[in-house]
C-alpha cells in the first residue's frame, strides 16, 4: 500500500513538471507575438535615424506618433475620421441589407436564383472603383457617391455568402420543418435565417474589409475630406508623416471592425 502511494505521488510530480515546462513554452510564444511588431518599429526607428532608410520616404515612427498627436490636438483628425466612419457605416449598411435580402431570396427560391445568379456573377468582377467617375457624375462629390461606391462593393460578397448559406443548410432540417408542418413565415425565421447565418456572417466580415479598401480609394478621387483624402493630399504635398498617420488609421479601424464583428458573431451564434 505504502509503495503504491509513493508511486502515485511520483507520477503526479512527473506530470506536474511536464505541465510547467509546457506552460513556460506557451508564455515564450506569447512573448514572441508581442515582440515582433515592436522589433519592426525599433528597427525602422534606428534605420531611418541612422540614414540607412531614406528619412524622406520612411520618417521614423516617433515622428509619425508626434504628427498623430498634433493632428488629434488640432482637431484635423476628428474631422477626417468622423467623415470616413460615417460614409463607411452608411455604405456598409446600404450594401449589407439588400445583400442579405437578395441572398435569402436566391437561396430559398430556385427560379429567383436562376434568374439573378448570372447577373450577380457578371457584375461581380467589375471593380466598383472603376465606375467611380460615373458614380461621381451621377451622385456628386459629396457623401452620397462614397456611400454608393462602398455599398456596391459590399453587396456582392454578402449576396453570394447568404445564398450559399441557405443552400448549405443540411437537408434533414428541411425535412424536420416539413414534417412538423412549418409555415412559410416560421420556415424563414426559424430555419432559413438562423441556418444561413454562419456563412452569411463570413460574407459580412469580408464586406467589412472591402468597405475599408474602398473608402480610401473612393476618397482619393473627388473628395474634400476623409481618411483617403488625408492620405492622398499628404502624399501629393509630400507630407509623408501625415500620410503614414492615415495608413495607421485604416489599419486600426480594420482591426477594430474585425474584432467587433467577431464579438457579434459569438453573440449571434451561441449554438456553434
Amino acid at each position, binding site marked *: 500500500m505504502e509503495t503504491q502511494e509513493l508511486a502515485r505521488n511520483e507520477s503526479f510530480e512527473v506530470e506536474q513538471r511536464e505541465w510547467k515546462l509546457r506552460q513556460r513554452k506557451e508564455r515564450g510564444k506569447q512573448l514572441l507575438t508581442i515582440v515582433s511588431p515592436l522589433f519592426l518599429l525599433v528597427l525602422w526607428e534606428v534605420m531611418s535615424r541612422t540614414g540607412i532608410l531614406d528619412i524622406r520616404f520612411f520618417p521614423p515612427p516617433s515622428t509619425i506618433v508626434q504628427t498623430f498627436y498634433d493632428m488629434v490636438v488640432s482637431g484635423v483628425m476628428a474631422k477626417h475620421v468622423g467623415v470616413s466612419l460615417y460614409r463607411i457605416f452608411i455604405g456598409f449598411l446600404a450594401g449589407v441589407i439588400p445583400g442579405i435580402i437578395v441572398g435569402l431570396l436566391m437561396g430559398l427560391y430556385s427560379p429567383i436564383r436562376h434568374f439573378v445568379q448570372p447577373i450577380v456573377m457578371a457584375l461581380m468582377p467589375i471593380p466598383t472603383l472603376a465606375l467611380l467617375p460615373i458614380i461621381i457624375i451621377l451622385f456628386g462629390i459629396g457623401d452620397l457617391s462614397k456611400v454608393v461606391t462602398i455599398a456596391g462593393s459590399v453587396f456582392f460578397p454578402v449576396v453570394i455568402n447568404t445564398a450559399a448559406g441557405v443552400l448549405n443548410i*443540411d437537408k434533414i432540417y428541411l*425535412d*424536420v420543418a416539413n*414534417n412538423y408542418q412549418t409555415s412559410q413565415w*416560421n420556415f424563414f425565421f426559424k430555419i432559413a435565417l438562423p*441556418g444561413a447565418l454562419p456563412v452569411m456572417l463570413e460574407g459580412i466580415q469580408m464586406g467589412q474589409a472591402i468597405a475599408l479598401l474602398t473608402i480610401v480609394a473612393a476618397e482619393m478621387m473627388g473628395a474634400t475630406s476623409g481618411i483617403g483624402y488625408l492620405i492622398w493630399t499628404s502624399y501629393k504635398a509630400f507630407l509623408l508623416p501625415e500620410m503614414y498617420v492615415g495608413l495607421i488609421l485604416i489599419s486600426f479601424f480594420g482591426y477594430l471592425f474585425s474584432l467587433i464583428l467577431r464579438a457579434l458573431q459569438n453573440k449571434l451564434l451561441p*449554438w456553434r
Partner: protein
Amino acid sequence: MEGKPKITVDGLMKAFYKKQGSVIALEDISLTVDEGEFVCIVGPSGCGKTTLLRILAGLEQPSVGSFTIATETNDRPLQSMVFQERGVIPWLTVRENVAFGLKMRNLPKAFITERTDFYLKKTGLERFASLYPKELSGGMKQRVSIARAFANDPEILLMDEPFGALDEQNRFILQEELLSIWAETKKTVLFITHSIDEALLLSDRILLMGAQPGKIIEEIIIDMPRPRKMEDVRKDPEMAAKFIDIWRHLQEEVLKSRE
C-alpha cells in the same frame, strides 16, 4: 391489442426515374398497423424501408397506390417523425427543439410550456433544457428527438433508425426508455431498424423487407409479454429461434442483392 387499423397502406409503389435506367424502390406494399401497435420494419440497407417511411411522413409522394392514417379528431397532427441523430436542430436549445412541433402549430403558450416540461422530465432532459445540442451526447440528442415527437402528440409516430448511430449500451438504455414512454401513451409506432435485436425487443410485429425491388417478404408476430427487458429477450429460447429465422431471411436477401 385487437385494435382497429390505424395505418392502411394499399398497393403502394415507388419508382425512381433516371435516364440511365429507372429503379423500383418499393413494389406493391400493402400493410396495416393497428391502433396502439408497435411495428418494426427490418431489412437490408437499400431495401427502401426509409423511402416507405418518408412517404408515410409526407416527405415523398408514392408513384402509385395510397395510404391512410385513421383520425378521430382534427386537432392532432397526422404523424411525427423521430429522425436519425442529425435531426435535432442545432440553433435551437433543447427546450426549443422539444417544443418545436407545438410552436409550429401556434398552440397557446401555457399549453406548450406544460407539455414541453412534461416530456423534458420524462426523458430526463430537464437539466439540459437551456443547452444547445452541440453540448449533448448522441444519446441525449436522440432523447430530444423522441421528446419532440411525443410532445407533438400525433396520431402515429414514425421512427427512422433513431438509435442507429448510438453505441450499444446507450442503445439498450434508450430502447427501454422508449418502451416505457410508449407504454404510457399507447401511440401507434412504425419503427425502422436494421438491428434484429432491437426489433425483437420493441415490436408487437416485425415486417421483414427484401431488397430490389423493396417488398415485404415475411411477417413475424412477437407475443412476448411486456414490459420486456433486454436480458429476458436474450434468454428466451423462442426469441432466439426468431432471431435466427430473421437472420436467415436477411442473409438470403443480402446474398441475392450481391448477384
